């Protein structure tokens, strides 16, 4: 085990995967010479050379499109979207192309492509850099959506993402890059997709979250403990595939749940979590599942960002209300 920030874990994992498999190559804006605007790819150009760490022109669609072609040529591209918000420029290459290529070609062209994309609030970015857009990608059958919350999972899920043969959108929380630090297993430790992680045990209510919101949920659970409310925290890790059984078990154990995320309320992935619980745990549910998430407004400017994002207080309040519900 080594203590690492998420950024360090991602950088080290990219390095190790590139060393392990010479078909792996990185492409994106500013990933080579600069080592990425957040230094996620720092040192990799020097180590692996310009054929494997490639600065691309400023054009997201051709970054994803080229990754599709590279995969068809037998390579394993890991492409960076400088920010998830700018993956919109490549949206037509993702759901309709990348995610469907295996299906369209009836298996001839599997797409072992990883799209890494930082996102998420709390760091006062300029406009369009922080949006939590995960729910816009889950309706692209064939695409897996991965959202690590810890440095250990950043490594384990990125190993899996690079090694398995289907496309992955790998969302990295900006807030976690340097602030999240935890013990990362050394060597091979791939984390299978579709296995949620119990981040904290608890009996009274289950708080379900992913990415940076997991840490909000944990802090809320700490706060709830002071009120003698025992809150479990479930970190989904991957939205597609979804660990339905893990969710249902966790909710069955407490009978009450709260979902927390950074995307706007209406149509956020929280709705899918609520619906999944409603489908599978209807009869064990004792109160409606609360959703703590931003309102249906555009991601705001820095000075009012804290009002928008789910706060520890709001999660605590929602959990408390859920527990107190008849």
């Amino acid at each position: 085990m080594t203590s690492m920030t998420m950024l360090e874990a991602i950088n080290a994992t990219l390095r190790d995967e590139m060393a392990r498999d010479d078909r792996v190559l990185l492409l994106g804006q500013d990933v080579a010479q600069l080592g990425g605007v957040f230094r996620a790819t720092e040192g990799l150009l020097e180590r692996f050379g310009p054929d494997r760490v490639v600065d691309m022109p400023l054009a997201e669609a051709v970054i994803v499109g080229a990754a599709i072609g590279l995969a068809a040529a037998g390579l394993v591209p890991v492409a960076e979207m400088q920010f998830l918000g700018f993956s919109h420029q490549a949206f037509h290459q993702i759901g309709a192309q990348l995610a469907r290529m295996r299906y369209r070609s009836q298996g001839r062209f599997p797409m072992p492509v990883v799209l890494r994309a930082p996102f998420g609030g709390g760091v006062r970015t300029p406009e369009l850099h922080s949006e939590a857009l995960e729910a816009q990608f889950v309706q692209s059958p064939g695409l897996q959506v991965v959202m690590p919350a810890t440095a250990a999972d950043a490594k384990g899920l990125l190993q899996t993402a690079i090694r398995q043969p289907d496309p992955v959108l790998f969302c990295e929380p900006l807030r976690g890059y340097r602030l999240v630090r935890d013990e990362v297993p050394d060597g091979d430790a791939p984390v299978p997709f579709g296995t949620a992680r119990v981040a904290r045990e608890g009996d009274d209510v289950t708080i379900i979250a992913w990415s940076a919101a997991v840490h909000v949920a944990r802090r809320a659970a700490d706060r709830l403990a002071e009120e003698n409310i025992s809150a479990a925290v479930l970190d989904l890790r991957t939205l597609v595939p979804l660990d339905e059984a893990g969710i249902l078990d966790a909710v069955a154990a407490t009978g009450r749940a709260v979902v927390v995320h950074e995307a706007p309320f209406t149509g956020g992935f929280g709705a899918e979590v609520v619906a999944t619980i409603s489908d599978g745990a209807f009869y064990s549910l004792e109160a409606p599942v609360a959703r703590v998430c931003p309102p249906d407004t555009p991601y705001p400017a820095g000075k009012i960002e804290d009002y928008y994002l789910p706060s520890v207080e709001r999660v605590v309040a929602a959990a408390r209300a859920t527990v107190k519900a008849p």
Partner: protein
Amino acid sequence: MTALSPQFLPEHGAAVPRSVLLPDGTPRPGVVPSLDDDQVVAALELMLLSRAFDEKAFSLQRQGRFGTFSPVHGQEASVVGSAFAVEPGHDWIVPQYRELPALLRHGLPLESFMQTFMGDPRGGAIPPGVNLLPIQIGLAAQLPQAVGLAWGRRLRGDDAVVLVYVGDGASSEGDFHEACNLAGVLRAPVVFLLQNNGWAISTPRSRQSAAATLAARAPGYGFPGVLVDGNDLLAVHAVVAEAVTRARAGDGPTLVESLTYRVGAHNTADDPSRYVPGDALREWQERDPLSRVRGYLRARGSWDDEREIHAAERIRARIDAAVRVVESTPPPGAPALFDHVSAQLSDRQRRQRADLLAQPETT
């Protein structure tokens, strides 16, 4: 203040198309054909097959036995001439959707192509060793993929060239720009074959872009651009072959604008009489690419009525056989929804699959 006026003017985008054959098939003095007679005969037979298939597809579609299909009619020289400049099994072809004969030459079974247009997902299967990406419905989306493929093959150490097709309409998409620009930066071994057939459904080329030619875009990406008479098999072949040679040698991409015409409907659902001016249509009909090749070969004693009749028979037999095969193939069932979606189905997908198979019949 002329010392400050623009260095680049709209008229710099104009060019006269390169050509080899005069409309009656006579070679221009001094040009050496880049295909020998056997090759030209093979090309003509492929063009004839394409023309015959267009007709068959329309008639099947009218009988409800075929889906929406876009004929090649008028563009056979453009498609076949370019396809003959790359090597099946080694080079790659990345199609738009109107390039049937190029796909056949590269090894796609006619049956697969037909299945696709009959709504059978299994038509998408591309046999191993057949170097094609699937046909593309999302216009221009194939171009970034083609550049990545060319780049990737070079990284993998082979000298394959990628020939990618795109329409005049699709060339207005952002993907066209992003792909050309990246190809220039990487000097990727790719040939962009822009088939300017005058139309994007009902939108004429003049309304698609104010550029004098679309080939003129190439210097803006740092590589050569060439305008060629797209109804001239030998000219298209020669120009593309030269581009392929450059690409293979590591000298980067070329944009080839093949000036041709869609002689007929956009597809089986379209009524071109609503928008195509009659005289333009007649003028282009007279410039039929098949006649030109026939004229060329006849003058060289390599084609005659008898050969034409035999070719037509062989072609009809091949098409009819394909129709029989695909029409006698049992339709795919509900499980096909889940085939090839991913290497492994998720728990949820497995449950969905089971539920679906347990469902009552659909009406």
